[in-house]
C-alpha cells in the first residue's frame, strides 16, 4: 500500500509542474499591459514604464517565472491589481465561501438525484421506468446549465416569487438564508452532473448485477435489498468514486457560469472580473488554485480507490 501511495503522489508532481508553468505562460502571453490598467488611460509612458520596472514586468520571461515560482513556494500569489489593497490569496479567500458551498451542494444534488435514478433504471431495465429515467437523463445532459438556471429563476423567482431572484447571503446571516439563495444555483449546476451519474450508475449496476457473486447472493436466498444494495451497489459504487473526483472539475468550471447567472459573488465571478480588468496575478492565482485543488482531489480519490479495491494496489505496485 505504501508503494502505491508513493507512486500516486510522485505521479502528481509533474502534473502540478506542467499546470503551474502552463498557467504562468498563458497569462504571460496575454496582450494588454497591467501597468497601463493600474494607472488608467491618462498615464504618461514614463510613469507606465516606471511602474512596469517596479512590478518586474520588464524582465525576461524566465526571470519572471522563476520569481513567480519562488514566491509560490512561500505561498505568496502576489498582489491583486484590481481588488484594492488585497493580495491575491486574500481576494480569493474572501470569495471562496459561496463557491465552496455551491459546488458541494451541487455535488450533493447530483448524487441524490443520479445514484438512486441509476439504480432504479438498472433494476427496471428495458421497462418504462428505465426508458423514462434515461430520457430525463439525456435531457439533463443536453440542457445548457445557464438556460436551465434562467428558467428556474423565471418560474420560482419571477412568477411564483418563492425564492430570491439572484444574489447571495453569507453563512453569518444564518444557514437557512444561505440555502434559500443557493438552492436554485445548486440545482442548476448539479442537474447535468446528476444526469451523467445516473447513466453511469445504471451501466455499473447492470455490470455488477450480472456478476457471479450476485448470482451466488440470490442463490443463497438473500432478499432483494440485501442483494441489490449489499452486493451489487457496493461494487458498482467503487468506480463511481473516480467519477465524483472528476465531477469536481466539471462543477468548478460550471460554477463560473452559474455564479454569473445568479449574481453570486464567488470565485467564478471574481475570475470573470479579473479577466475583464486584466488583473494577471489574480487570474493566475484563481486558475492555479482550482487546477491544484483538482489534482489534489483526484490524488485523494486515487488513494481511496486503492483502499477500496485491493486489486488496483497490486497491479500497479
Amino acid at each position, binding site marked *: 500500500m505504501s508503494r502505491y501511495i508513493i507512486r500516486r503522489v510522485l505521479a502528481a508532481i509533474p502534473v502540478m509542474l506542467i499546470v503551474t508553468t502552463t498557467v504562468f505562460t498563458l497569462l504571460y502571453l*496575454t496582450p494588454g499591459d497591467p501597468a497601463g490598467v493600474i494607472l488608467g488611460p491618462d498615464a504618461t509612458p514614463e510613469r507606465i514604464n516606471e511602474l512596469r520596472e517596479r512590478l518586474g514586468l520588464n524582465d525576461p520571461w524566465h526571470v519572471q517565472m522563476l520569481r513567480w515560482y519562488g514566491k509560490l513556494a512561500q505561498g505568496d500569489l502576489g498582489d491583486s491589481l484590481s481588488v484594492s489593497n488585497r493580495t491575491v490569496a486574500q481576494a480569493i479567500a474572501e470569495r471562496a465561501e459561496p463557491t465552496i458551498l455551491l459546488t458541494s451542494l451541487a455535488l450533493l444534488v447530483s448524487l441524490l438525484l443520479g445514484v438512486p435514478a441509476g439504480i432504479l433504471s438498472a433494476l427496471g431495465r428495458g421497462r418504462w421506468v428505465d426508458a423514462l429515467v434515461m430520457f430525463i437523463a439525456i435531457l439533463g445532459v443536453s440542457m445548457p446549465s445557464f*438556460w436551465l438556471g434562467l428558467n428556474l429563476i423565471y418560474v420560482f423567482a419571477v412568477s411564483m416569487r418563492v425564492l430570491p431572484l439572484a444574489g447571495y447571503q453569507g453563512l453569518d446571516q444564518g444557514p437557512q438564508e444561505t440555502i434559500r439563495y443557493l438552492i436554485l444555483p445548486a440545482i442548476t449546476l448539479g442537474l447535468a452532473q446528476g444526469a451523467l451519474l445516473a447513466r453511469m450508475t445504471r451501466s455499473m449496476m447492470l455490470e455488477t448485477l450480472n456478476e457471479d457473486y450476485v448470482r451466488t447472493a440470490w442463490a443463497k436466498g438473500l432478499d432483494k435489498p440485501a442483494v441489490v444494495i449489499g452486493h451489487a451497489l457496493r461494487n458498482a459504487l467503487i468506480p463511481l468514486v473516480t467519477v465524483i473526483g472528476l465531477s469536481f472539475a466539471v462543477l*468548478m468550471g460550471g460554477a463560473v457560469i452559474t455564479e454569473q447567472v445568479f449574481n453570486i459573488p464567488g470565485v467564478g465571478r471574481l*475570475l470573470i472580473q479579473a*479577466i475583464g480588468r486584466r488583473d494577471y496575478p489574480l487570474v493566475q492565482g484563481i*486558475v492555479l488554485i482550482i487546477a491544484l485543488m483538482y489534482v489534489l482531489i483526484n490524488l485523494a480519490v486515487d488513494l481511496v480507490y486503492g483502499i477500496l479495491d485491493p486489486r488496483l494496489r497490486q497491479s500497479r505496485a
Partner: protein
Amino acid sequence: MAQLQTQSQSQAQAPLAMQGTAATAGLPAGRARRKQTFFDRFLRHRSAVIGASILGFMVVVALLTPILVNHDPTIATPQSRFARPMGDATPPATGTYFFGTDNLGRDVYSRVVKGSQVSLIVGLGVSLAVVCAGTMIGLTAGYFKKLDSPLMRVMDSMMAFPGVILALAIMSVRGPSVGNVILALSIVDTPRFARVVRSVVLSIRELQYIEAAHALGVSSPRIILRHILPNCLSPMIVQATFVFAAAVLGEAGLSFLGVGTPPEIPSWGQMLGDARNFLTQAPWTMVAPGTALMLTVLGLNLLGDGIRDLLDPRLRRQG
C-alpha cells in the same frame, strides 16, 4: 480521416441514405448486404433516428438561413424594442416578429436562425480539430511505449483545468472571435479524445494480428495506419459526436459569459446572456435560443448514444 468524415456524415443523414441503399442493390451482394444491415439497424434505433433528424433539421436551417430570416438579425430597431412574439413591426420596419424582439429591437427569430450557423461551424470545426490532434496524439502515445508517459502526463495536466476555465483563460489571451472559440474548445477537448484513442490502441497493439504484421516486417507507420487506425474508428466516431455536442455547449457558455463570439455575430449563448438582463421585462427572449441550443445538443447526444449502441457488439447482443 476522410473516411471517418464521410462515414459520420452518412450516419448523420441516415434517413436520406435509405434511398441510397436501395440504389446499391446492384453492387456485389456481400457489400450491399453489409451496408443494408447497418442502416437497417440504424433506422430501427429510435434515438439514433431522432438525433439524426434533429441534427439534419439544424443543418438545413443553417444552410437556408438567407431564405428563412425575415429581418436582418443584427440591425437594431429602437422603435420596436421588446415586441412580443408574433407582434407586427412598427413602421417604417415591416414584417412579423415571430419570437418577439430583444432589448435593442432585434428580431429574435432571425437571430436564432442565424445563430445556428455559429453553433454548427464551431461544433464542426472543434470536432475536426480534436479528431485530427487527438488521433495523432492517441496513436503515438498508444503505439510508442517511450512516448506514452510524457504525452499522457501533458494530457493529464490539461485535464486538470476545468474545461470552462481553461477555455476562458485562452479566450482572455486571444480575444473574442469565432476562430479563437474553435481554438480554445479544441485545446480543451483534445486530451479526452486522445485518451480514448490511446486506450483502444493499447488493447489492439497486443493482439496477434499486429504481432503477425511485425513478424512480416511491416513498418510502424503502416501498422498504425492500416491495422490499428481502422479498428479505432468506432469509438472515435462516437467520441467525435460527443465532442461536437460539448463544443456547441461550450461556445454557448463562452458567449453567454461575453468572451466567446463577438457581439456582431448572433449566437445562442450570447442571446441568452442578453436575455438574462431582461428576464422580468422580456422573458420570451430566452425561449427560442435556449430551446434551439438544447435541441441541437440533445440531437447530437441521442445520435452519439445510438451510434455507440450500434457499433458496440457487446450491447448489440443484449438487444
